[in-house]
C-alpha cells in the first residue's frame, strides 16, 4: 500500500465565510429593510391612527369569524346561492370534459397527425393564456351579464385546460398496446374506448376533479363580476355594499366547508382508483 503524503493546507490569514452570494443576499435584504422603514415613516396616513386602526381590524375580524350571521339575506337564500355556485362549477366541468375528451383525441400525437395536434395545442394554449374571468367578461359582452355568460366563459376555459391534461394522458398510453389492436384489424374508435380509455381513466378522473375545484372557485369570483346570482354575488354585496361583516364571515365559512368536502371526495376517489391500479 502506498501512502500519499499530504501537504498541509495553508489557510489565508483571515478566513471569511462571507462568500459572494451571501454578500449579495445581505445587501438586498438590507436595502429592502431601508426601503420599508422609509415607506413606513413617510406614509401618508391622512388622520389614520395605527393603534385604533389595528383594533378596528381586530374588531372586524372578530365580527367576521367569531360572530358570523346571515345579515339581511336569509339562510335559505344563501344556501340556494351556494348550490348555484356548486352547480355552476359542476355544469361547466361536465360540459368542458365532454368537449375536451373529443378535442383531446385530435391533440394527442399518438392518435392524430402532427399538424392537427400542433394546431389544436397552440389554440388551446392561447385560450388558456387568457384568464377565465376575462373570457366570462368577453362573453358577457355578447350575451349580456348573467348566468349564461358565466357558463360559456367557464366552459370555454375548462375545455382548453382539460384538452391539455387529457391529451397528455392519452399520449402516455404506450404505442405498442395501440399497435397490438391495430394489428388485429380493430378500427379507430373501438381502440380509443376499449384500449386507451381504460388505461387513462384514473388520470382523467383526477384532472377533471381538479378542474371542478377550480371551476367552483372561479364560479364564486365570476358570480360577483357577471351577476350570476350565486354566492359570489352575495359576498360582493355584503362586503362592498352593505358592509355586513357577519354575513361575509358566514359566506367564507360556507365556502370553506364546500372546499373541505370537495377535498375529501377527491381523496376518496383517487384512493378508490389507485386501489384498482
Amino acid at each position: 500500500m502506498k501512502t500519499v503524503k499530504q501537504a498541509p493546507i495553508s489557510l489565508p490569514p483571515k478566513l471569511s465565510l462571507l462568500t459572494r452570494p451571501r454578500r449579495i443576499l445581505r445587501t438586498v435584504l438590507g436595502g429592502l429593510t431601508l426601503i420599508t422603514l422609509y415607506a413606513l415613516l413617510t406614509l401618508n396616513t391622512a388622520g389614520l391612527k395605527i393603534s385604533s386602526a389595528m383594533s378596528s381590524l381586530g374588531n372586524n375580524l372578530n365580527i367576521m369569524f367569531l360572530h358570523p350571521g346571515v345579515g339581511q339575506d336569509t339562510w335559505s337564500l344563501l344556501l340556494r346561492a351556494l348550490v348555484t355556485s356548486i352547480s355552476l362549477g359542476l355544469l361547466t366541468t361536465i360540459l368542458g370534459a365532454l368537449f375536451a375528451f373529443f378535442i383531446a383525441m385530435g391533440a394527442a400525437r399518438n392518435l392524430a397527425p402532427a399538424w392537427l395536434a400542433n394546431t389544436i395545442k397552440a389554440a388551446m394554449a392561447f385560450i388558456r393564456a387568457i384568464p377565465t374571468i376575462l373570457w366570462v367578461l368577453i362573453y358577457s359582452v355578447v350575451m349580456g351579464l348573467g348566468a349564461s355568460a358565466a357558463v360559456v366563459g367557464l366552459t370555454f376555459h375548462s375545455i382548453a385546460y382539460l384538452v391539455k391534461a387529457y391529451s397528455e394522458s392519452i399520449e402516455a398510453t404506450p404505442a405498442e398496446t395501440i399497435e397490438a389492436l391495430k394489428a388485429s384489424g380493430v378500427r379507430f374508435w373501438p381502440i380509443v374506448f376499449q384500449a386507451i380509455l381504460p388505461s387513462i381513466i384514473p388520470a382523467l378522473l383526477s384532472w377533471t376533479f381538479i378542474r371542478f375545484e377550480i371551476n367552483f372557485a372561479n364560479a364564486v369570483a365570476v358570480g360577483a363580476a357577471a351577476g350570476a346570482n350565486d354566492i359570489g354575488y352575495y359576498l360582493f354585496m355584503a362586503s362592498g355594499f352593505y358592509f355586513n361583516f357577519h354575513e361575509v364571515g358566514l359566506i367564507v365559512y360556507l365556502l370553506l366547508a364546500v372546499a373541505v368536502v370537495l377535498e375529501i371526495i377527491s381523496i376518496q376517489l383517487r384512493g378508490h382508483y389507485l386501489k384498482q391500479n
Partner: protein
Amino acid sequence: MLKVIDLDKSYNRQKQSLKAVSFTAKPGEVTAIIGPSGAGKTTILRSVNQLIKDDAGQILLDDEDIRQANKSDLRRIRHHIGMIFQNYNLIGPLTALENVLHGRLGAKSTFAGMLGLYSATEKNEAAKLLQDVGLADFALQRCDQLSGGQQQRVGIARALMQHPKMILCDEPIASLDPKSTKLVMDILRELAQSKQLIILINLHQLDIAQTYADHIVGINQGTIVFEGPERALTPEKLQAIYRQPETKAVTADAN
C-alpha cells in the same frame, strides 16, 4: 399457406434492410426466422401484416396479396392474423378475460366495438381459451398483476380469439424465464398442429428454434441465406446465418 416473394424494404437510401426476401410458411408448422440482431427479422414479420409498409414484392396469404389490399380488406385480413409480442402489449388495467375478448374487436362494427358489446358465446369462448392456456383461475385478474409468462399466455389466447389462420410472434420469449419459455413454446407448437395454424416466429435463441421449429428461415443483412427443415441446418449454414458483417469484424480485430 403464406408465401413471401421478393420483398424489398429500405428505411433510408444508403442501406437496404430487406433484399428480395422470399420464403414460405405452411399451416401446421412452426416456422422460425433466425439471424443476428439487425438482420431484418422484425421488419419481415411486421411487413407480413403491413404494420411496416415495404417497398416492393408480394405477400400472399392463401393467394390473397395483403400488399394490394385496401383499407377495409386490410382490416379483414389482419383480423385473421394473430400477433403476440415480446412485451405482451396487453391493456394492463383490464382483466385477462377482457384482454382476450379484444381479439373479437376487429370483427365488430365501430359502435359495438366502442361499447365493447360481446355476446355470451364470445365470453364463453374467451373463458375456454384462458382455460386452454392454463389461466382459468386468473380470468378476472388485472393483467398488470400477472407474471410475464402468464401475460404472454393471455396474449396467445387473445390471438386465438381472432380465429386466426396465422399467428405472428415477435420475439415472444425474449423477456421470459426458461420455464415460461418452455410453456409458451409448447403451446405454440401444439397450436400449429391441432388447429393447423401458420406460426411464424422471430427468434433470438437458436437452441429454441432448433427444438421447436419445423421450418427455419435464416437471414443475414436483409438477405435470406437459408431456408429449409430444421435437420438441414448444418454448422456451415449456421455460420452463414450468424456471420458478422465485414466492417464489424475489422473493428473486433482492432480491439
